[in-house]
């Protein structure tokens, strides 16, 4: 078959298509977004598979579960923190008897290039007691995704593919295999296994635990866990996972004699293979992207006399992304130096809102309206508008997780602060801002929700918001906001005085109000024009 250059994300997407994918669901999140973007483009061109953006990761996961119930293959993809949102269906889906293959592609972000934390999804796979495959190359991203669907049907569990930013967003060569047809529709033959009433759930939980040895036998014999150079009389060995293998190989030449090397690409980790590998060694360096997951596990399964080194022992930095230079010094090699200029320090260039961005106009009006309120609090959420934390705006005071601005505002107001403003984007509001607003409506909490509606999911590249923004006002009114405290404004400098006045009035109001500030993202307007021009050219 053909060879091509793909992003890691795209390799996962194509692997899923060639595995006979019927449907893919996701909410956009860096670095996982390009999986679904590729599938949507593929669908436009070929008619199949189904590829859709969803309201959030939980709904995406549940839709994928329905496809599996129907006997067909489904992919659900998300970033690491998105798995927290989908954690409920994810954990429980490990107990049901998966019918059509269900693969969960999770892209972690070590180094937090565009995330709030750097949690390691391998622990989530362990938590759910399912198999996790971790590619270390683009080819593996493709191959492992294909295989994951087979494994899912074989073990009747969801299978996790764990990516990291550096693989998701780098391009490399992929040779594709022969595409496989979609499964026919065939409803689960064991519907009781999908009904997690306690009596069923206890039986299913036991069944999942009973399958653990079989899963471990698979990971002990599969080609993703490999040993090289074993049996040599060395005292020092290296264990790698994921991209750490590549950084290790990059430095191998300079080590002189290659130490024995175990690479782990499939979990549950092969405990017996690790024990055998470590057998005669006195020192083992564990190189893994993310948490010291294997390193910790190792401490439980090898003799205490073996010196285990890694992120937890301090031989590798405990945080951040790995790279060839970090791995080099962890191996005891002398650090490489490039070109240096004495005394050269460069200012960093923080990201910022685009010139003329409607969010900037909303922040301007909001800050003006808050003048004279010493106890004012602005909670915010995750999107382009989070950049309002930085100068020149310095307009927001929190960013924790999707939807949190609304709930936090309610709590802060009830604790006694006033005025309290919750800032959230249109897509984020629909993702997980609606439910905390229901709480606030019930209590008529004295706070203002400011929905910054730029009619798109801006930060991840301008995907469509799940419902058009014209419906936001009707939705909010339907939840029960009184008409005189619900306003729709145009976020534009020419309305600055009016917008400031409306906001000021609502900040003074000792009850709940919602203000929707609307103007389309400049980037999506530009892209729309380009697409139109290309269509008529």
């Amino acid at each position, binding site marked *: 078959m053909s060879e091509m250059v793909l992003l890691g994300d795209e390799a996962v997407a194509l692997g899923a298509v060639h595995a006979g994918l019927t449907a893919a669901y996701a909410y956009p999140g860096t670095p996982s977004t390009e999986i679904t973007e590729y599938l949507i483009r593929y669908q436009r061109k070929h008619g199949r598979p189904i590829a859709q953006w969803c309201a959030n990761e939980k709904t995406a996961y549940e839709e994928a579960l329905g496809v599996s119930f129907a006997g067909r293959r489904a992919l659900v993809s998300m970033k690491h923190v998105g798995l927290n949102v989908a954690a409920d269906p994810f954990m429980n889906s490990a107990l049901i008897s998966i019918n059509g293959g269900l693969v969960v592609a999770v892209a972690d972000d070590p180094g937090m290039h565009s995330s709030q934390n750097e949690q390691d999804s391998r622990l989530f796979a362990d938590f759910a007691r399912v198999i996790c495959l971790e590619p270390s190359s683009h080819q593996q991203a493709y191959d492992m995704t294909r295989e994951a669907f087979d494994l899912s049907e074989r073990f009747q569990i969801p299978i996790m593919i764990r990516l990291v930013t550096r693989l998701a967003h780098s*391009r490399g060569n992929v040779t594709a295999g022969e595409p496989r047809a979609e499964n026919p529709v065939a409803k689960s033959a064991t519907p009781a296994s999908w009904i997690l009433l306690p009596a069923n759930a206890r039986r299913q939980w036991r069944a999942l635990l009973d399958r653990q040895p079989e899963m471990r036998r698979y990971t002990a014999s599969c080609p993703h866990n490999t040993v090289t150079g074993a049996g040599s009389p060395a005292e020092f060995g290296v264990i790698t996972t994921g991209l750490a293998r590549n950084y290790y190989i990059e430095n191998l030449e300079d080590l002189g004699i290659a130490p024995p090397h175990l690479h782990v690409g499939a979990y549950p980790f092969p405990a017996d293979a690790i024990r055998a590998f470590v057998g005669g060694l006195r020192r083992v360096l564990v190189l893994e992207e993310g948490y010291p997951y294997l390193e910790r596990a190792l401490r439980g399964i090898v003799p205490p006399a073996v010196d285990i080194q890694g992120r937890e022992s301090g031989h590798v930095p405990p945080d951040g992304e790995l790279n*060839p230079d970090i791995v080099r010094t962890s191996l005891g090699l002398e650090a490489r130096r*490039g070109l240096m200029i004495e005394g050269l320090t*460069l*200012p960093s*260039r923080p990201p910022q*809102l685009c010139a003329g961005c409607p969010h900037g106009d909303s922040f301007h009006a909001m800050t003006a309206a808050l003048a004279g309120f010493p106890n004012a609090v602005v909670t915010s959420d995750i999107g382009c508008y989070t950049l309002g934390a930085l100068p020149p705006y310095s307009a927001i005071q929190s960013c924790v997780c999707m939807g949190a601005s609304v709930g936090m505002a309610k709590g802060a107001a009830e604790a006694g602060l006033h005025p309290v403003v919750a800032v959230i984007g249109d897509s984020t509001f629909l993702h997980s801002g609606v439910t905390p607003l229901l709480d606030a409506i019930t209590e008529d909490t004295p706070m203002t929700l400011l929905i910054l509606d730029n009619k798109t999911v801006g930060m991840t*590249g301008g995907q469509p918001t799940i419902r058009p923004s014209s419906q936001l006002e009707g939705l909010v009114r339907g939840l029960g906001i009184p008409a005189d405290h619900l306003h729709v404004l145009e976020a534009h400098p020419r309305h600055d005085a009016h917008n400031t006045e409306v906001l000021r009035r609502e900040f003074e109001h000792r009850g709940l109000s919602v203000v929707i500030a609307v103007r389309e993202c400049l980037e999506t307007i530009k892209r729309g024009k380009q697409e139109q021009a290309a269509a008529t050219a």
Partner: protein
Amino acid sequence: MKFDIIVAGVGGQGVLSVSAIIASSAMHEGLSVKQSEVHGMSQRGGEVQANLRLSDKPIASDLIPRGMASLVLSMEPLESLRYLPYLSDTGTVLTSTDAVTNFASYPEMEGLLAQIRALPHAILIDAERLARQAGSARATNMVMVGAASHLLPVKLETIEHFVRTLFAAKGTKVVETNLKALAAGREAAASR
């Protein structure tokens, strides 16, 4: 043969297009390619860079180790200096002199350019002016690809082919402008 490049710039300057054209050209000529990009938040006016590795052998790491890059190709003078620790002793800094001064503490320009000129191997190109002469300031990044073409381990004709491919959807005029920009950049760097 091994040729590591850091393509640097600011979000929106076309760093990824530059990197994509060189990567496609190298692939077409049978080289192994790895190209690591920055997506998401940093693209909003922040520092953007792509690690681009070309080799006639398989490439292990997506990231370039320190001191190994043959070329820092920068769309902007300040950003060209940010990646010096990755440049080898014999490596070249090729930068556009057009500054993106979208933040308050941007260094004084003459001093900045003097620091770049003092590097062992530096080429400075007035890329935006050349792009305007070719027909559009938006072709600045193609001027830079042209300027780099003397150093790259790929044929000029292959690069031209992929410039045509990349801009084909935008019409023949855009393709012609970008090819002109490519040629102008190549000529400007030829004498350095």
